[in-house]
């Protein structure tokens, strides 16, 4: 471990590689986590199938790539397909569990996650897949730092998508309805908002965001039918750390998590890369617990 830290201090240029890689992948984590925050905040549904939606989006882009459509064009198609899929899932499953207790919705989305992973496995097989963009790869500092253009493009697209979603939530009628429902669903109903439609739209929007994140992940990382769980956990860590209504926090936590994974893998070894994520979740939960205890004492 100390050997690896001394590499970073002796040749600081490798820090740049780790930070860049972390930021690139972290931006897709943040995107998926924002979708989760939306569904969690508005509908109080904790979607355990979040990561499987992401992987599904990735498979759509990959499959289109195999048919000769560039995966970047696959991105908008993946968004549309996943939006429709999200609507279907809402109508068939989520609508029935939304006003039940927490465990019902957890179980329903957990079941959905298993079914999705197995269905992807049956359709596309268990192999790891990657969507190839065939963009150039640049090297800097005598090949010590390499940046694939597709990662830059993906990073920029994540930013654009985040801005679009924010503008939509702020300015459109549906966006306002979603925010109103999140604040107080009953009051929103009294004001004439069709909350069922708002829920359906929110859930579909989340699926569409996952579709976008997945399409980007298939281009910069790899996808496999059973990799959804890792992405679900990351989304939960980010949302737990940042809170629901806090887009800035979600972005910071997402990017931070990406960078932390890279440093964890470098310093402690690849076997601890994902352990870092779970470790962070535990740390965040403990911190929140302490914070709440302090709050309770004040109230007493």
């Amino acid at each position, binding site marked *: 471990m100390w050997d*690896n830290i001394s*590499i970073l201090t002796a*040749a600081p240029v*490798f820090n740049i*590689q*780790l930070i860049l*890689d972390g930021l690139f*992948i972290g931006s897709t984590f943040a995107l998926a986590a924002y979708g989760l925050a939306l569904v969690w905040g508005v509908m109080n549904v904790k979607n355990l199938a979040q990561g499987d939606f992401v992987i599904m989006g990735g498979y759509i882009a990959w499959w289109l790539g195999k048919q000769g459509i560039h995966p970047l064009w696959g991105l908008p198609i993946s968004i549309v397909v996943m939006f429709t899929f999200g609507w279907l899932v809402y109508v068939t499953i989520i609508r029935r569990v939304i006003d039940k207790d927490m465990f019902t919705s957890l179980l329903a989305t957990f079941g959905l996650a298993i079914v999705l992973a197995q269905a992807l*496995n*049956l359709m596309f*097989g*268990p*192999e*790891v*897949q*990657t969507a*190839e963009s065939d963009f150039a*790869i640049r*090297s800097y500092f005598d*090949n*010590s730092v*390499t940046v*694939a253009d597709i990662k830059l493009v993906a990073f920029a697209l994540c930013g654009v998508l985040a801005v679009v979603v924010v503008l939509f939530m702020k300015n459109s009628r549906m966006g306002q309805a979603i925010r109103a429902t999140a604040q107080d669903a009953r009051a929103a109903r009294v004001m004439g908002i069709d909350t069922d439609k708002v829920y359906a739209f929110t859930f579909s929007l989340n699926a569409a965001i996952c579709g976008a994140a997945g399409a980007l992940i298939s281009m910069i*990382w*790899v*996808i*496999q039918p*059973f*990799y959804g*769980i*890792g992405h679900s956990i990351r989304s939960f860590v980010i949302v737990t750390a940042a809170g629901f209504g806090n887009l800035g926090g979600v972005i910071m936590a997402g990017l931070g998590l990406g960078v932390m*994974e*890279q*440093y*964890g*893998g*470098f310093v402690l*070894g*690849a*076997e601890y*890369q*994902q*352990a870092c994520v779970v470790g962070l979740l535990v740390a965040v939960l403990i911190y929140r617990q302490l914070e709440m205890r302090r709050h309770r004492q004040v109230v007493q």
Partner: protein
Amino acid sequence: MNTKRLIPVVAATLAVAGLAFAGPAQAKVEGDTIILGSAISFTGKYSTNGIHAKNGYDIGVAKINAMGGVKVGGKSYKLKIQYYDDESTPLRTAQLLERLVNQDGVKYFLGPYSSATTKAAAPIIEKYKVPMIEAEGASRSLFNKGYKYLFAVLSTSEQYLASSIGLAAEIAEKNGKKASDVKIAMAFENDPFSLDVRAGVLEDAKKYGMKVVIDDKMPRDLNDISSTLTKVKALKPDLLLLSGHSKGAATGARQIKEMKIDVPMIALTHCEAAKITSKFGASTNDFLCPTQWAPTLTYKDKYFGTAADYDKEFKKTFDGYKNVPYQSAQATASVLVWKDAFERANSLDPEKVRDAIAATDMETFYGGIKFAPEGNNIAKPMVLRQIQNGEYNVVAPSKWASHPVNWPRKAQ
């Protein structure tokens, strides 16, 4: 209830029960057919290779039947395989083997796909004292438990990448350096198979006094090894070794390309299963990939002819194969061992057949087959192939090499 009406019901129930019990006792040999049993993965994460193995079994059985079947006690028997899908879960493999033994009465077995499922199968095989010749479980841990009824035609996993260490030493000495100067970076998945591969590498590296500068273990859901590869850039090793099934090969090949890793020698397992040449093109040139078998090897037998003949016949029989995976070839070889053992035992008694299998010493298109007392095959070495312009060419050991090795590898 009317007793008269009850009698036929009871009689029918007894009859059905009777049939159910009478059936299996004869099922291991039905008329002139010997039934081999196999629970193998048609669905789930091992399904691709499971089906490769099934195709290998099927072509072997078809060949033997076409050549007159198996002769035991002056009578010719045909072979037939009873399959079940184990869904790639070891627990299911064990259940299905119990079913094959107890309900279907099968007494002779072919293996499942993967070390994990074979590990689950072995105790059942031992419990019922029925022999299994497996072709797809390479983990060393299968052969140190004292199993008596488990035999494997393939080389065990610690040999997979060990040959690359020998090759690196050879090249270092040719260039006027010492073998002990070679620096090794390695990343292995944290699972029984890959850790076996790692153990073999460490053993050989220690023999030459080589230094291991990176020794990372990759998680099961591995989708990123860029931090390990950044370390590789910093420490500039002479040899990079990767093993983590198909996903390790795919992730590794992609990120080696993306990060322009220029280690002079890179060796990884499962190149073909992950289809890295078609996915990542020229960037995979000069990768070294170990294999159990290659169609250019000079082995031959009376059933299929040479390794190249087998390759041709397999491609003709099954559509969609550009390369014949070694998983299929070794599956076929295990069927050939069954025929050979039945005929030498000249009996259908599982005990006698087991002893005949243990005494096997034969040459097949797949390589020599001779079992150690522990059940693993000691007559066939692993070979190392190098991807040269998109083709897999055998480069080591030198006895089997069809092409010289390209060294050093250049990042492309």
